[in-house]
């Protein structure tokens, strides 16, 4: 510990505190994470993460246990957390007094797609280790956005090795709103718990606010206007409360995530095809009506108007009898 001089505290959470420190021996800035209490496999997890070379999480320089505290020295990542990024974006757009603020608060869809891919890639890497490591605390606060818009996942305080097929829940770990239902209730968990958290983070990016999934009816997510339909299905599958219905792995998620763009193009083609056929039918019907003897014209016109009114009424009722969310804000510490 003498080697490191603490400069300031960067943050704190349920598992410990994070400090900005200076490595006096080599003269570089590092992040020092102190975890308390420390679990028995702390040393093994840190060894595995240190050996895993990935640009998606910071380099771990050193880790040890001292006086029942786990201490991790890792690369200091400069940038904003995803939470700060989302909140700052929202404040900036409001100050510029844009008329339609809700649309402008959003991160671009392409960016969300790329970030979703990076997060899934990160989960794939740690879940493919032997033995697997579960991250268990994926949330916007633990994701750094670098100046070049790449992501780094920080804070391994809640990470744990998965022995055999499942990790014993035991004490509650994670963050309410991002932890899966089974994780939050202290049950056995596996890599699908991280998939749930990833879905909640991606949803936050679309919403433009860090709310997590706590309390949200899944049906309200279906009404979210800013999530493209193809992505919505993928996100909903991540957020299934029954782990059996969720993506079994980050790889399965990535497969659908990458192919959603192709599906979106297909649905666009379908959209044009449907309306082309409809317009053609209407033109043909108008022609037929014009050609019919006058007595049949009246019948055909009456039936068409009746059917049109019926369809309109059905549409109006479907709009009328569902609650539409006008505004939803949830701020908490």
């Amino acid at each position: 510990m003498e080697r490191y001089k603490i400069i300031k505290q960067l943050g704190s959470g349920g598992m410990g505190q994070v400090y900005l420190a200076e490595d006096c021996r080599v003269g570089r800035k590092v992040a020092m994470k102190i975890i308390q209490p420390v679990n028995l496999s702390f040393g093994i997890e840190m060894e595995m993460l240190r050996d895993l070379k990935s640009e998606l999480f910071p380099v771990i320089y050193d880790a040890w246990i001292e006086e029942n505290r786990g201490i991790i020295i890792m690369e200091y990542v400069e940038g904003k957390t995803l939470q700060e990024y989302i909140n700052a974006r929202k404040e900036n757009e409001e100050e510029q007094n844009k008329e339609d603020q809700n649309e402008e608060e959003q991160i671009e869809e392409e960016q969300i797609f790329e970030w979703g891919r990076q997060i899934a890639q990160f989960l794939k890497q740690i879940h493919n280790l032997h033995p697997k490591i579960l991250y268990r605390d994926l949330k916007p606060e633990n994701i750094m956005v670098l100046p070049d818009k790449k992501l780094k996942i920080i804070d391994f305080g809640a990470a744990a090795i998965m022995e055999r097929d499942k990790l014993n829940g035991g004490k509650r770990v994670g963050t309410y709103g991002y932890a899966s239902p089974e994780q939050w209730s202290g049950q056995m968990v596996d890599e699908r718990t991280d998939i749930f958290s990833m879905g909640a983070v991606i949803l936050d990016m679309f919403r433009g606010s860090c709310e997590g999934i706590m309390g949200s009816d899944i049906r309200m997510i279906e009404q979210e206007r800013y999530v493209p339909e193809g992505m919505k299905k993928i996100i909903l599958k991540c957020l299934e409360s029954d782990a059996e219905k969720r993506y079994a792995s980050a790889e399965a998620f990535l497969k659908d995530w990458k192919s959603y763009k192709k599906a979106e193009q297909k649905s666009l083609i379908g959209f044009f095809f449907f309306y082309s056929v409809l317009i053609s039918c209407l033109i043909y019907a108008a022609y037929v009506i014009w050609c019919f003897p006058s007595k049949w014209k009246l019948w055909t016109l009456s039936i068409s108007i009746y059917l049109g009114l019926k369809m309109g009424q059905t549409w109006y009722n479907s709009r009328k009898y569902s609650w539409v969310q006008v505004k939803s804000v949830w701020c908490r510490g």
Partner: protein
Amino acid sequence: MLTAVYYEKGTDASVCQDALLLEYVQKGKKEILLAVVCDGIGGLQQGEFASSFVTGQLKRWFYHDYLKRIGPGFTKKKRIDNVTRVLHEISRELVQYGKQEHIRLGTTLTMMIFCGEKYQLFHMGDSRAYLFPASKNMGQGLLCGQKNGLKNDLKSDLKSGLLNRKKDCRLTKDDVYEKNVLCRCMGSFGWQGIFIKQGKIPKNGIVFLCTDGLIKQVDDREWRAVLNGAVIETEMKLEKRMRKLAREARDRGEKDDQAGIAIVNRRKE
């Protein structure tokens, strides 16, 4: 309705122990709005968890339960009973969590449900709710705050069987006015009843819910002067005014967390 929120962590705190929730929904011409502010009890542990847990559970209840019951048969009394029951359940869950973790935790609660212009207020603790009519002559100000008594509500809960005296209540010698406000909260001190009020917002009136970080350095007269429903036409303006006065409180030395919701009854012509 125009709505705006203000939320800021205290200057000395590492995490904000306040939480707020605003849910505004419409169905045709009918509109329902749920506004909640909670202040985690700083003297206990995990105040931030208590406040976020309560608001999260209320958000879930609002969509899963309350909205589905709205209809001709869902009378005012049934709404009050429904809300009282859910608050009691949430408080119990907090107590159970505290026992599991061997900690004590709690949060204040000020909650309002608006159906059009009519509101129902549910309150516990030292956060506040104000009603500022557009005309100063109308006089109303504080709807609820620190000193609201529990005389009617606790006794009626016991009489109706919602509460069991031995199991649920920790009655003090004065069950009308609780001197130590720390004990009157959702969570570890047990259910002590809830203050309930009903009323109507006048046209252009403003309802302002806030935690104590917004009203210690800036008093309600200053808030009333700034939050004038007759001149506030947009949500942006409402939010700017709230932010301005909240920052004024900071400049005067306020260090506590700040959370506030303002709602203007502004009907479209």
